[in-house]
């Protein structure tokens, strides 16, 4: 057994371990949102004088929160933690030691591998780089002729490699489904625990709402933003832009409308049903359109879609509808993330 120093709990190692295990919040008291130090005098609900120091307050708050979570979710896995004493389990100690050592080794190995790779990379844009083989040459030389898109980056991602872009749109959809599963607060029934929890999660009660200046400004600005977003989506094959960036701008326009006018007005035209239908229809249309292209291409048929004159809006075959689909999916995803993180639902 090693010799313990005096005042071991305040040594640097113990302070670091306390911070790492989450018992101490270094930012407590220096956060930006400062709460006034003087509170109201102790109310009639509690007999003795209220907790005086911040550490006591924190402990009381942790205790209260633990009690609430125990009500809702059941007893904790480590019953020793309820009393606040440190847990002396041999498996945990060994695991913590091994974990620290392994994590340091892993980080060092990854850093070394990255640095070594970066040093040995070929110069940027060199003519004999492995990336400049016959594939980009084909894209650059016959991109305009085969796809009809002046911006042949868009021609590449929505014509040559449209399947990958389909995967990306699906990833956006899956991501918002996962956030929905994790964050959604179900409609509350008579059950009191869930109602208490829902009420505590609802922090929008305290926000300032109906700011007149913001509403008047949003009245003018939201149409501008939406029109600009539509412009970016439609001009994907002529100038840099396309579905992804245009969808982001459209989503931010919707978020501005939501912030200015509140959830009730936005739910008049954008509910969960609308979200579901729009994303499903967009992805299904993308799938069907590209299936048609695969079918005709694989069987050496002529796809009947005209390429048009390069430089016009209605050109480059299927790229324009696919841009619109991708833009719609991205817009719905951005709006869904925002409302899910703010409200727990749509």
């Amino acid at each position, binding site marked *: 057994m090693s010799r313990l120093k005096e005042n071991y709990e305040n040594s640097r190692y113990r302070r670091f371990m306390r911070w790492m295990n989450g018992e101490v919040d270094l930012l407590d008291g220096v956060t930006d949102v400062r709460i006034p130090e003087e509170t109201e005098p102790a109310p009639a609900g509690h007999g003795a004088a209220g907790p005086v120091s911040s550490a006591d307050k924190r402990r009381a708050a942790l205790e209260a929160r633990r009690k609430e979570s125990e009500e809702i979710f059941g007893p904790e896995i480590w019953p020793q933690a309820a009393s606040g004493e440190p847990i002396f389990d041999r498996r945990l100690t060994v695991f913590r030691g091994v974990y620290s050592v392994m994590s340091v080794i892993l980080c060092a190995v990854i850093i070394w591998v990255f640095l070594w790779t970066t040093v040995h990379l070929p110069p940027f844009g060199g003519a004999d780089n492995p990336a400049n083989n016959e594939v980009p040459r084909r894209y650059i030389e016959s991109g305009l002729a085969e796809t009809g898109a002046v911006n042949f980056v868009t021609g590449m991602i929505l014509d040559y490699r449209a399947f990958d872009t389909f995967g990306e749109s699906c990833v956006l959809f899956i991501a918002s489904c996962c956030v929905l599963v994790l964050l959604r607060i179900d409609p509350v029934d008579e059950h009191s625990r869930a109602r208490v929890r829902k009420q505590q999660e609802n922090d929008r009660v305290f926000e300032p709402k109906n700011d007149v200046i913001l509403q008047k400004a949003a009245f003018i*600005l939201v149409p501008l933003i939406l029109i600009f977003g539509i412009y970016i989506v439609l001009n994907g094959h002529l100038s840099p832009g396309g579905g992804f960036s245009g969808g982001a701008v459209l989503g931010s326009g919707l978020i501005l409308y939501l912030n200015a006018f509140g959830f009730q007005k936005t739910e008049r035209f954008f509910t969960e049903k609308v979200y579901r239908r729009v994303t499903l229809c967009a992805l299904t249309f993308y799938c069907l359109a590209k299936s048609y292209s695969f079918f005709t291409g694989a069987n050496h048929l002529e796809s009947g879609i005209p390429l048009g004159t390069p430089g016009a809006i209605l050109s480059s075959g299927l790229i324009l509808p696919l841009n619109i689909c991708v833009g719609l999916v991205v817009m719905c995803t951005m709006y869904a993330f925002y409302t899910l993180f703010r409200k727990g639902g749509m």
Partner: protein
Amino acid sequence: MTGGWIRFLAAAGLLLLGLFFEVLAVFGANRFKKALNRIHAAAMGDTLGILFVSLGLMVMRGFSMDSLKLFLVILFFWLASPVSGHMIARLEAMTNQNLGEIAVIRMEKEDREKAAGSGRPGGGDESLPDAAETGPEEKGKSGSGKGRKGAEK
């Protein structure tokens, strides 16, 4: 002086004027001590700085699609940045503890008539700060009053 040089001088003048306003804005935002004063300085950069820099760039470009887009940038900024300044000022008024050090100018009609006696015009001298009302209580009242007023409409 050929036309090219005239255009260069005009564009350089406007650009340097815009940069001067932007330097003033950043300098002011760093030197002021209260957040509400900093909003004043930052707003100057947001409006005048962008205006002159964009005008200079538009002169450099001539009449083209880019100049139109830069003009749209100016338009958007002049509509949007006063609103963001208002939101920041509201945040400051609602969350700052030491706001009461700024003197609150408030003259009720009765106080005005009481203070001035007779024969005073309606929109009288409003530059006297009410020194008794500065302090945390007034800050609390003014903060929540602003919140209530803003939330009512």
